[in-house]
């Protein structure tokens, strides 16, 4: 068992260590402050934050709804909603094009109203929301489902109506799980590549997010690519540390 566990840790740790070893630490400030890098990081931060807001505002209610819904169609709906978790992102990007592209299901109608989504910053946010939303839905639904409704029952005997019970009892109880879902959604949105490239393209300052910039720089300026990769790596490790802390706490 122990050699296998060490091998597993190695499969993950060795590439990370290799990236750290390859990073030109001395030039890091210079590489990260280049206009292209700054632009990509700024765009990534803006779009990922917006996508996270959308995930929380839309995904959390969907998670609550799935937890409360008892119909046999619930499983079908959940399977569809969670599909982006396992869908290759490039397929997600194509699907978004078929929906919101100029020739798409809704795109034609949106276009006639003067709204063009594909290959814009909006498309980046939409692609990120598409792939990140399931994390929020899943975190919310499983947290609500694993709770006994005992406190909600008691709250109702104390005279509280449904909305007071929801905000004062249910939401605080599932807040750690919501926070975890939010952090994971943000990380997934920040790292989004395939769906963004397919649905939003790679236009500097408009749709070229950090992962796209890394992919582009990797051949022309390897040092710049690895410097940006280091940023994403650091964010990923911080995110995981943040996301799993509340889970551990609530499990105790």
């Amino acid at each position, binding site marked *: 068992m122990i050699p296998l566990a060490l091998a597993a840790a190695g499969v993950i740790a060795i590439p990370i260590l290799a990236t750290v070893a390859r990073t030109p630490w001395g030039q890091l400030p210079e590489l990260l402050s280049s206009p292209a890098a700054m632009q990509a990081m700024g765009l990534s931060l803006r779009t990922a934050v917006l996508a996270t807001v959308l995930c929380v505002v839309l995904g959390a209610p969907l998670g609550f709804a799935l937890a409360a819904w008892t119909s046999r169609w619930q499983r079908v709906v959940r399977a569809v909603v969670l599909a982006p978790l396992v869908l290759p992102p490039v397929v997600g990007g194509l699907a978004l094009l078929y929906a919101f592209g100029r020739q798409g299901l809704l795109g034609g109608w949106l276009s006639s109203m003067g709204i063009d989504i594909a290959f814009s910053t909006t498309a980046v946010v939409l692609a990120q929301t598409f792939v990140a939303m399931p994390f929020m839905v899943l975190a919310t639904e499983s947290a609500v489902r694993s709770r006994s409704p*005992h*406190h909600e*029952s*008691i*709250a*109702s*005997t*104390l*005279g*509280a*109506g449904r909305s*007071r019970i929801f905000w*004062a*009892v249910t939401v*605080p*109880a599932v*807040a750690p799980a919501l926070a975890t879902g939010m952090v994971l959604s943000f990380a997934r949105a920040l790292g989004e590549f395939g769906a963004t490239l397919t649905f939003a393209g790679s236009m500097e300052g408009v749709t070229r997010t950090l992962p796209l910039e890394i992919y582009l720089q990797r051949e022309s300026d390897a040092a710049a690519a690895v410097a940006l990769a280091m940023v994403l790596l650091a964010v990923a490790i911080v995110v995981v540390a943040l996301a799993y802390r509340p889970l551990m706490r609530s499990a105790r």
Partner: protein
Amino acid sequence: MSAATMSIDAHIAVPERGVDCRISIPGAGLIALLGPNGSGKSTVLAALAGTLTPARGHARLDQSVLFDVGDPGAGTIDAAARRITLVTQKDDLFPSLTVLDNVAFGIRARGVSRADARAAAHQHLAAGDLEDLADRRPATLSGGQARRVAIIRALAAEPRALLLDEPFAGIDVEAAIAVRGLVRQAGRTITTVIATHDAADAWGLADHVVVLDSGSVADAGTTQAVLSQPVSRFAAAMAGRVLLRGTAAATGLTLDDGTVVAAELCGLSPGDAALVAISPRHVQVTEAVNGDVTDVVARIEHHGDAMRVWGHLLAADVDPEQGVDLRVGDPISFALAPRPELYSPTR
């Protein structure tokens, strides 16, 4: 009995929990639902509070309908609108709120502002001598403290009735004494129902007792009547007594097999159907020739510093030193002192 107490009239049927019982209690301050685990006490409380909807039946608190499954016009009143609070054996306090905000919760729900609700909650906690806990989180409280806070929170909501499921179970003796004080106080102002498996909780506290056996009512009446003059074997067992059934005779009770047990007639005439409920504390084991009833040892139980010797007919609590030589199958004789009092099966 205080003026604010209300009558309860209910028929509660929850087939999946084996409960189908009819309860009718005149305006009483403190009511004890007495029964073993699984007898349906918690289900009855949940149905009254509105956290569970029975398949059939109805319930009224005084004139107001709580639910009436058969009457679509009356329907089921939301738990939130019933103004009946419930304290269970589980962790009832909301873990994300401080003790103060837990107590303020029901006050806030009535539309009182946050500041006023907190001020009122402070007063309630102070009255219960728990103000020190105001800023604590429920997770840091002992079981007894949490139970007391939950009861204070339930009272702070100004309910019409308070329901308590095993309020004295699972907490230490000191806390149980404090909870008993709280419950007694509650019973003076509003209709209070406690569910308990222990008749000792009802004595000196409850005005009225309802005995539940496997989801139906085995006996009901004033505490004195039900616990000292039970009419069913089950109710007698819950009250810690042995029930004998027979006919009143000149010197006592004649059982079906002709055995005569010495007893006071207490107004019954020879020939009347009669019952007697005998506490093992009032029975002594004596020399085989001197006793009132001859019997054979059927079972021996040890309870703390006492030993309960069961015959086929009666049981006696004896000093373990005195009973050390007794074995199952030994012939014994029971003496009754004081003499038990006969009563009519219709009380």
